[in-house]
């Protein structure tokens, strides 16, 4: 056994000495932590938010849980505080086209003030104008107009009646009109008496009646005209009364907003409209009798109030009390939430709306500042992504209710005037999303020119320890957790490397670290401790592993029961313990797998059974093909490979992907060719290249620990261990229990650079190098392999010659 390849416990020990930390507990670390390891990202953010050209919106990418959102928001808020507060916006009734409400901008905080002024104006009108209409003066004047109309009509009828009476004719009221009849003694002449009259008399009466009827017709035809005249007078009376009230109320407002021409112009329109609709200030009598919900559109229980809504102001952006420009995080970027919407209310079964039902979206709220959106959520909501691009391209916010755009809602709606847009959009998402958008959407690169790429790890050095501890202290403070003592900090730092899967790095996954702190805090409080100690962190780590350890334990149990065949002692030809890792629910689970190889004389084909059964992924197949290349390149270069070999992951019934078992497969293969038994007390992981060099793989910690767990569950004999690529040594951050066994010599780790080193460890035989004669030593592994391959080659030649003779 080559002891020079063995890794000693000291090399594997990643612990930090708590005594080296310059504090007792994190309670002493009051200084706000600096941004750790994100210099590139921070520089990109600074550039992106400072760049004023269009299209320089930001895409912040990195895995979730790294803290990119809170960091970017913090930076934006710091920057926003020093910038000018953007203008307020409000929607107003458009008198010239009420379907297109007018958007008006105000100096910061002024929109609400104007709205309040207009509310007061409306209240004054609501009270003042009906009071005028209720006044004795108005009633008298209105009655006068009504009376003069009636008198005019009555007078016309009376004159006609008088003329008729002079001729002995009466004007009678019929159920639906008027008629003339001859009178005798104050009563209508009966038909018999009329029949007895001389014809001349009859004709005379008829002629008079006809003449009177024509006159009556003229009178009745005049009546509508008289009524219109009376109504016009009444309207003018209403207008004159409203004018004095409205003008008085508006004068003050006009003076106050004299410096704002747009508002003054709106006030002028209000005045004109109020005069034009003076009648609307009075509650129509017929509306009073209608039950609730049956009122016609636009007429509420208080029709005057419904009418006066048009003079109110719908403030959609109110910057009153704001310091700096807005920073908005849209958590639910639906189309309506982003761009605003026009709501409707049901009246008499119809959906109606007006400018006061326009609701702003987050684009309105963030206008003049920054809007942060989760990219995946944005893409998940229909039309939101297209809408954002359209808004950024057009540089305006146009409220188009989605239901109407899709034709789902067929009702009268509004087209609010668009509002100019000037903001930075910050999308937050995974890297994959950025690359996909970049590739699939040509507009994306035009609109999101700044990429902010967040690091997941930071170099573990002495200089980072204190800032990292400050970061932990801040997390503890924010989460109202107990302070960490320095032992706990040292343990968390170690776990930081473990999460990063690199002894020379520390993880920057803030959420994972924060979870660990919270769980450690739970165990500390459970033990009524005042601070979080190393033991609490250890307990939190172990408890988290235990919670997610069902699959891991089940696999181990099956190995121990012999259901899954994995040996941890003895020797076997063409059989090696490989190590695999699978990921489920964010948890990586390592487990040992038996790999076997069989060889015989053949046509030079190495069969990967996984690939043949379509259970091997492309990278795994690549590994096996590399293995063939290695064989062809190293042994009997002048002869054709005349073997048939099969390789298989035993008891594997799912997809096998990755090349981390290629070194193990090669070792099994060479063991079979060399007929050299492999020690089953060892497991091996690593990928191989065509030159026989062992290359780094992923999940090394989980793989090592999986084999260790199996061996420990049986008996640690002192000969068991795992062979790992030398390139992975820095990635080893192993559990403390394993380290203790290494220290005690009960378990070993070996770091290899070549397959020869691995073979020597696995077989106990020298690998052998070619001598000056170009041959490998006879009893070395390589010598045995080459001898076997030569034998196959000779047989192939002999067979070939025999065939040629026949």
């Amino acid at each position, binding site marked *: 056994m080559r002891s020079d390849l063995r890794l000693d416990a000291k090399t594997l020990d990643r612990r930090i000495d708590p005594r080296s930390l310059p504090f007792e507990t994190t309670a002493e670390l009051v200084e706000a932590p600096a941004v750790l390891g994100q210099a590139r990202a921070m520089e990109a953010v600074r550039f992106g938010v400072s760049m004023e050209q269009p299209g320089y919106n930001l895409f912040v990418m990195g895995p979730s849980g790294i803290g990119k959102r809170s960091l970017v928001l913090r930076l934006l808020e710091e920057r926003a505080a020093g910038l000018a507060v953007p203008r307020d916006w409000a929607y107003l009734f458009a008198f010239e086209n009420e379907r297109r409400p007018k958007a008006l901008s105000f100096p910061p905080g002024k929109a609400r003030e104007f709205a309040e002024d207009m509310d007061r104006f409306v209240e004054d009108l609501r009270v003042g104008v009906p009071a005028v209409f209720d006044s004795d003066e108005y009633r008298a004047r209105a009655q006068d107009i009504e009376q003069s109309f009636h008198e005019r009509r009555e007078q016309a009828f009376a004159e006609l009646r008088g003329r008729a009476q002079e001729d002995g004719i009466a004007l009678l009221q019929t*159920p639906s009109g008027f008629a003339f009849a001859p009178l005798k003694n104050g*009563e209508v002449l009966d038909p018999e008496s*009329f029949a007895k009259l001389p014809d001349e008399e009859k004709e005379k009466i008829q002629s008079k009646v006809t003449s009177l009827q024509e006159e009556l017709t003229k009178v009745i035809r005049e009546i509508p005209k008289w009524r219109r005249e009376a109504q016009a007078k009444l309207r003018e009376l209403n207008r004159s009364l409203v004018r004095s009230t409205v003008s008085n109320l508006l004068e003050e407002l006009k003076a106050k907003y004299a410096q704002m021409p747009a508002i003054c112009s709106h006030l002028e329109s209000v005045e004109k409209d109020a005069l034009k609709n003076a009648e609307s200030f009075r509650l129509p009598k017929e509306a009073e009798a209608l039950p609730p919900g049956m009122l016609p559109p636009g007429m509420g229980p208080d029709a005057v109030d419904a009418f006066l809504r048009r003079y109110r102001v719908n403030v959609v952006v109110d910057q009153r009390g704001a310091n700096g420009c807005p920073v908005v995080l849209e958590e639910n970027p639906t189309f309506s939430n982003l761009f605003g919407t026009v709501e409707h209310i049901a009246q008499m079964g119809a959906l109606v709306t007006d400018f006061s039902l326009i609701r702003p979206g987050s684009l309105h709220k963030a206008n003049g500042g920054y809007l942060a959106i989760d990219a995946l959520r944005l893409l998940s909501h229909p039309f939101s992504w297209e809408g954002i691009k359209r808004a950024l391209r057009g540089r305006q916010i146009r409220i188009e209710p989605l239901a109407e755009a899709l034709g789902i809602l067929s009702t009268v709606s509004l087209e609010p005037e668009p509002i100019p847009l000037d903001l930075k959009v910050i999308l937050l998402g995974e890297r994959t999303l950025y690359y996909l958008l970049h590739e699939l959407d040509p507009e994306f690169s035009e609109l999101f020119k700044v990429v902010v790429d967040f690091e997941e790890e930071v170099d573990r050095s002495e200089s980072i320890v204190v800032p990292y501890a400050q970061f932990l202290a801040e997390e503890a403070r924010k989460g109202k957790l107990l302070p960490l003592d320095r032992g706990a900090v040292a343990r968390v730092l170690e776990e930081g490397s473990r999460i990063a899967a690199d002894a020379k790095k520390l993880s920057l996954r803030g959420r994972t670290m924060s979870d660990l702190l919270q769980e450690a805090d739970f165990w500390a409080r459970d033990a009524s401790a005042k601070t979080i100690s190393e033991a609490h962190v250890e307990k939190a780590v172990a408890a988290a592993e235990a919670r997610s350890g069902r699959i891991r334990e089940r696999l181990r149990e099956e190995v121990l029961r012999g259901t899954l065949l994995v040996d941890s002692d003895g020797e076997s030809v063409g059989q090696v313990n490989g190590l695999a890792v699978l990921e489920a629910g964010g948890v990586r689970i390592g487990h040992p797998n038996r790999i076997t190889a069989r060889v015989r004389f053949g046509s030079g084909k190495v069969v990967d059974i996984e690939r043949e059964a379509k259970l091997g992924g492309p990278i795994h197949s690549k590994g096996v093909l590399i293995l063939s290349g290695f064989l062809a390149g190293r042994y009997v270069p002048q002869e054709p490979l005349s073997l048939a070999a099969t390789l298989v992951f035993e008891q594997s019934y799912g997809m096998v992907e990755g090349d981390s078992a290629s070194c193990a497969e090669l070792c099994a293969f060479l063991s079979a060719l060399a007929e050299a038994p492999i020690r089953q007390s060892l497991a091996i992981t690593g990928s191989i290249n065509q030159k026989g060099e062992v290359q780094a793989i992923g999940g090394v910690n989980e793989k090592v620990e999986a084999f260790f767990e199996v061996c420990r569950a049986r008996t640690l004999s002192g000969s068991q261990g795992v062979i790992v690529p030398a390139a992975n040594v820095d990635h080893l951050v192993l559990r403390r229990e394993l380290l203790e066994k290494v220290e005690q010599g009960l378990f070993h780790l070996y770091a290899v650079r070549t397959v020869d080193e691995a073979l020597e460890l696995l077989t106990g035989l020298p690998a052998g190098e070619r001598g000056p004669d170009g041959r490998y030593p006879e009893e070395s592994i390589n010598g045995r392999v080459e001898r076997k391959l030569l034998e196959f080659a000779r047989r192939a030649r002999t067979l070939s010659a025999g065939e040629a003779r026949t």
Partner: protein
Amino acid sequence: MRIERIVLFGQGFSEGGAEAAAELAARFEAKLAYLFLEDINLLRLAELPFASEIGIDTACWRNFELSDLERSLRTLASHAEESLSSLAQRLHIPWSFQVLRGIPSQALSEAACSTDLVLLLRSQPRVGIPTRAETLAREIVSRSGAAVLYLSDGTPVQTPFGVVFSGTPSDLPTLRLVATLARDFPGKLVVLSLDSGEAVFHEPEIQEVVREAPSAILLTGISPKARRILAAAAHEGLGLLAFSVGDSSLPPQEIESICAGALCPILLLP
């Protein structure tokens, strides 16, 4: 005071008038009789060969047929009867409905002979020869001896009650009736004493009648002119003004003017 039968006269149905009449009937536990009058003048006109009518809103001419007229009158009567029925059911009062045909003042006077109180509305729709409602009211009282309550739609009978007193013999029953009404409601009695009645008012018999009312005031020196009487009534805020037309010192024109100009209901007594 006992009122057995209240008559509501109509040619077209008035909701407000019917409501007022029904409430009065309910108050006095009297029977409400609706007399629907078909003016015979109209029927005669419809039989004349040249009869035609002109639409009130359209000014269109159309033939005025007897069958059409009768159908229209039946429709009006039927509507009035249905409305009265539902009103009577609501207020739990006995009621009757009768269609009369004749000259309005004659027919109503005859029908009102056996009636305690006839209600006439200022704005009640009428068809036939136009008759001033005030004239009709006065004629009914004169001819039938029944009391006529002349009022506007929606104007309730309420206290204080006023009575015009001129010292004639017929004024005493009127004063007695109104004093009884003031006691029953109860409410204040306001006596509007005309120049001619001032001296008689202080007689013991009359004073005894006045004492029946919970409270009473006397306004004296009012000249027998409609304008003066109406001004005094408005000043006192009267909810009913009563006077006798039998041997009143008030000429008929003044009586009709009071009826036409009063803001409160007018009770005309024989």
